[in-house]
Every structure is written in structure tokens, then in C-alpha cells.
């Protein structure tokens, strides 16, 4: 996985709560057997009409936000299904960071597996950043994972919390499976213990 580096990018405002995974990537795009190419269908039903024409009002169709790298959204972002197609589509579009008051559990996990940084901040701070994002392409934000801060174009800085292990994996672009395989001996020990204690499993 690519290392997550400090970057400055345009933030798109999506002031909706409960943005669910069916909205992020509708089911008709889950029939792929690949991880790539889903960005064009990100938010498909909000982004295009039935004929496939762009709906001009939708935030990612507006000129200022077509290259957005950050998304600012409402509470409980990513609720619904476990489909990793949701973060795949987000990443493929070019968004690397999502800021919201809270995230649904599975989606939150899936982001980290794909080099996307989900940042949870108190509602009042998200409201400030939402207003910033509303300013369009001029309001670029800087996301600094190393120092755990978001900085607006005006220089206002918002610190954020993140799980230390997840931060480490993002910064170093680490492969989870490789890391776990280093613990092969512990897994083997567990398996022999479990086989003795719970042989029917």
C-alpha cells in the first residue's frame, strides 16, 4: 500500500447524515471482480440521472470540487453494508481523507485497508470545516497525519485523534497480512491450545 503523506487538497462538502454504502456505490457496481475503476460510479445515483448525464448540483460535479481529495460529511458516515467497494470507489475518485462526526464501524476499518484516512471530529468542528469546504476550490485544507492535524487555508488548525497502530500502518503503507504472518508462531500456539480445549470446533 502507498504511504499516506501530508497533503493539501480541495475539500468537498456533503452535509448529510447517515450517508450509506448504497449511496456511495450502488449495488449494480458490486458485480466487478476487480478493485479498481469504481471512481466514476462513486455516489452514482446522486451524481448522474437515469440517462447517465451529470446532475450539475451534486457537489462532485461542480467545477470547484471535481478534483476534491477530502470529503466533509455528516454523522454516521458509511453506514450499511460491509462492501469494500465503497472505499475503493472513494479512493479511485481521488479522495484520501473523510472528515465526519462519526463513522460506521466496518466502513471505518475498510478505509484504513485502502490508504484512506477517516477523521472523526466533534460536530461543532465539522460544522466549521463544512463552512470552509463550502468556499470552493480556494478553501484548500492540509491533512497532516504525522502531527494529527487538519489546517484550513486561513491557518486554523484542528487536532484529531487516531488509533496509534492504524496511524503507523497508514504512514508506512504496511500490509496487514504480512504483519500478521510475522506472528505465525503465536497463531500456531493458539491453534494447538484451542484444539486441546475445544476439539469440536
Amino acid at each position, binding site marked *: 500500500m502507498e504511504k499516506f503523506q501530508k497533503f493539501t487538497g480541495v475539500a468537498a462538502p456533503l452535509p*448529510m447524515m447517515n450517508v450509506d454504502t448504497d449511496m456511495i456505490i450502488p449495488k449494480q457496481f458490486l458485480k466487478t471482480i476487480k478493485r479498481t475503476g469504481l471512481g466514476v460510479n462513486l455516489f452514482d445515483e446522486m451524481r448522474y440521472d437515469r440517462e447517465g448525464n451529470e446532475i450539475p448540483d451534486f457537489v462532485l460535479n461542480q467545477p470547484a470540487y471535481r478534483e476534491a481529495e477530502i470529503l466533509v460529511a455528516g454523522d454516521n458516515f458509511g453506514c450499511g453494508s460491509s462492501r469494500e467497494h465503497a472505499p475503493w470507489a472513494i479512493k479511485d475518485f481521488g479522495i484520501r481523507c473523510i472528515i465526519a462526526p462519526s463513522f460506521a464501524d*466496518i466502513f471505518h476499518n475498510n478505509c484504513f485497508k485502502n490508504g484512506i484516512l477517516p477523521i472523526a471530529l466533534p460536530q461543532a468542528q465539522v460544522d466549521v470545516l463544512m463552512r470552509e469546504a463550502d468556499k470552493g476550490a480556494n478553501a484548500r485544507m492540509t491533512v497532516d497525519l504525522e502531527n494529527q492535524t487538519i489546517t484550513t487555508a486561513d491557518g486554523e488548525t484542528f487536532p484529531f485523534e487516531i488509533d496509534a497502530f492504524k496511524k503507523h500502518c497508514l504512514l508506512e503503507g504496511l500490509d496487514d497480512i504480512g504483519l500478521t504472518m510475522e506472528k505465525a508462531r503465536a497463531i500456531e500456539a493458539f491453534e494447538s491450545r484451542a484444539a486441546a480445549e475445544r476439539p469440536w470446533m
Partner: protein
Amino acid sequence: MPPKTLYDKIWDAHLVHEAEDGTSLLYIDRHLVHEVTSPQAFEGLRMAGRPVRHPEKTIAVPDHNVPTDPTRIQGIKDEQSRIQVEALRKNAADFGIEMYDVDDVRQGIVHIIGPEQGWTQPGMTIVCGDSHTATHGAFGALAHGIGTSEVEHVLATQTLIQSKSKNMLVKVDGELPPGVTAKDITLTIIGRTGTAGGTGHVIEYAGSAIEALSMEGRMTVCNMAIEGGARAGLIAPDDKTFEYLKGRPHAPKGAAWEAAVAYWKSMRSDEGAHYDKVIEIDAAEITPVVTWGTSPEDVLPITAEVPAPESFEGGKADAARRALEYMGLEPGQKLSDVEIDTVFIGSCTNGRIEDLREVARVMEGRRVKDGLRAMIVPGSGLVRAQAEEEGIAQKLQEAGFEWRMAGCSMCLGMNPDQLSPGERCASTSNRNFEGRQGYKGRTHLMSPAMAAAAAVTGRLTDVREMMGDGVPG
């Protein structure tokens, strides 16, 4: 030793390694894979040259996109769906994983066949690339959905990197009134706590009303733990659980059965165990409910009226405004006046034999209203066969229902079973999101009994109006 919750016990019994910051490696006993969220995981294994660590701990079944039309045996017409099912077949064969294929009577929705085959057992850790894996929690197993990267991780290592969730207790005591079912319990809980109410928690459902439920009812309750935001839902196993499992193909046999039951009996929360959050609900106050909006938390009794967006605070007012527009409803409109076009009975929430019996009881002496599309999609081939053996299938077909093959079907509309724009559905599934059952389709979630009542009248209907012999209890 301090008293532990059921979740604490299962967690501790599966801990392979714990880092100083709490990041843990958890052993996974059972893994279920289906065609939609696994192809990229197997592709990842191939690219890295990694084998599946324990193929015997995984089963595979196609369910999400398979057609439910009986002609599906001759081949899946949709090319992409066919490719996904073929990929699952190839992956299962290449990696030595048991698969219940489309033509196997044991095929069905992954969360229905796990318990049905005795694959799901108390005290286990169970994962699947599907959020409704929470269903298996009804057996006192720690079960939750994972993404495709994690599917690959489990295939390669039989473990998962996790951090421990908090404990939440939802206690439902008392007796359910007539006409109120497990689905009403689980929807009422979500209506109360909200879709983010369980975020960061594992919910344990307890109390006399939960204990009184059948295993099927308990699965319905746990299934929707995810809609409440929780990582998993759990119910302590008891004699009903053991009775359900006994003799099933993958259940332990002989001396192993005795040892297993002894262990399973220890799988319950200790007296005085600590919960970070507790919700108490009086079963007697639960009524038959339906959803009115586009979030599973938009729950109201069937006797209520469509709410005004202004009655909500903060972002929820905007969400409600958007939902009412999408749903084509007006504030103040009586829910029982809302007319429907389609009835969908099925899904991992309500596609089990007990659900079909409930529908049959309501339909006794009644018919599906003319012009309505009403579809029953059994959760598995075995549920379908059992309903046919009990005579339920014939009666329901005579009453006007379509009788389909097993699959996820219109719950998520990945196969041809979809709503058209503007169509309104009384659905026993689990999500009423925008576009979930079809582009611009409108979904009202409810129990099988309530969906049957709606099929009779053509509008959202209080099943208690059909009281008498047909009332499910």
C-alpha cells in the same frame, strides 16, 4: 477474577496476541464467503502466492446476485453475475473450500445456511464479508461483517486484527402483545437508539422477552444489530440453542457433543458483569411497527402518522425532509393509509421457516390483493423444501404469492428482483436506504406478519386488525 460479559469471554478465548496499545489478533473459528465480496480477496492471495490457512474452516455459497427464478439452473443470464458465481466456484475448487452451489438444495443466504448446517455454534468467532453476519450472534457466537481486505486476511491467517469494542446491554423484559414479533423488537430498539446508537459496541440482547423467542426470532433480532451501528449482536445460548443444533450436519456428535454443551453452558455473562451502556425496554409496550423514511431508525407504530421534519433536531430535520420527499409521503398522513405496489418476504432477516409460517397464518382464508406483486423468497433451498413439505408453499401460491428459489433477492436488488422507480414495497428485509431495492424504489420495513397483512389490503396495515386465528403470537 472480575465478572465478565459473554463478549468478554469469547474475546478472551480467541485472543492470539495483544499489543500494548490494545491492538489484538483474534482467532477466527468460522468464515463464510459469497460471490460478491470475495473475488478480490482470492485474487490477492494468488498474487502474493499465499494459500488458505484452513480451507476446512471456510464455506462458500453464492447468494447475493443469483436469480431466484427457477430457470436459473440453466445458467445465469446476467453476464457479470455469472462471472462472479463462476469465480466463486473456481476459487472454492482451487483453494479446497466446500461450496454449496446454485443447484444444491443446501444453497441459500449465507446467514441462513450457517445455522442450518450447524456450522454456527456458541462461543465461536464467525466472520463473513457481509454486514449481516451479526445474525449468527443469536447462538452466542461473536459474529460480524468484514471488508474484502479482511476476508483475504482471514483466508491467509485465520485471524483478524481487531480492537475490543465496548459492552452494551439491551434488555427486553415482559411479554410481547399479540401481533408483535421479533422484527418489531429489533426495529423498536433501533428506533430508540438510532443507527449510530451501538457504534463502538457489541450488543448483548437479554431479558425474558428475548429468552422467550425461538432461535429464528433471535436471529432476526441479532441480524439487525448492524443497523443499530453495533459491531455484533449476541444472545446467550440456552437449551433452545442446543436443541436447535443437535443432529445438524456440522454439529458435534457423541462425546464431542457432551463436551461442547458443557462448554456452551459457560458462555453467558457473569452476574455483575459491567456494561458500558444499558437500554431497557418493556416488551408490553412494543407494537407492530413500520419504517417511514430511508434510515432503519425511522421507525413508528403502524397506528402513527408520518412525522413532520420540524419535529426533529439538527441534521435529522434535513434528513427527514429528504426522506419524505424520496418516499413520497406527507407529514400528518396516516401510515395505515399508505398504499403499496409490492410485497417482499425473505432476506437473512426474515427468510426462515418460522417467518413463512407466520405469513401463512395471516394469509389463512385470505388472498393477495389483485394487482399487487407479492413475492416469497425462502432463505435457503432447505427452508423452501420444508415449506413445501408442510403445505405452506402451496397455500401461499394459491393465495397469490410468487414462490421463488433461495437468495438475497430484493433485499438488495443485485439480481433481477428489483423495484421500479416510485414503486413502494412492504418488505421484511433490513434496509430502507435510497435505491436499496431498486433505483428510486420505496421501502417500508416490517415483520412478515405485517407484510402479509399489507399484501391482503394493498396498504400498510395493522396486522392486529386481522386478529383471530391468524394472529401470530
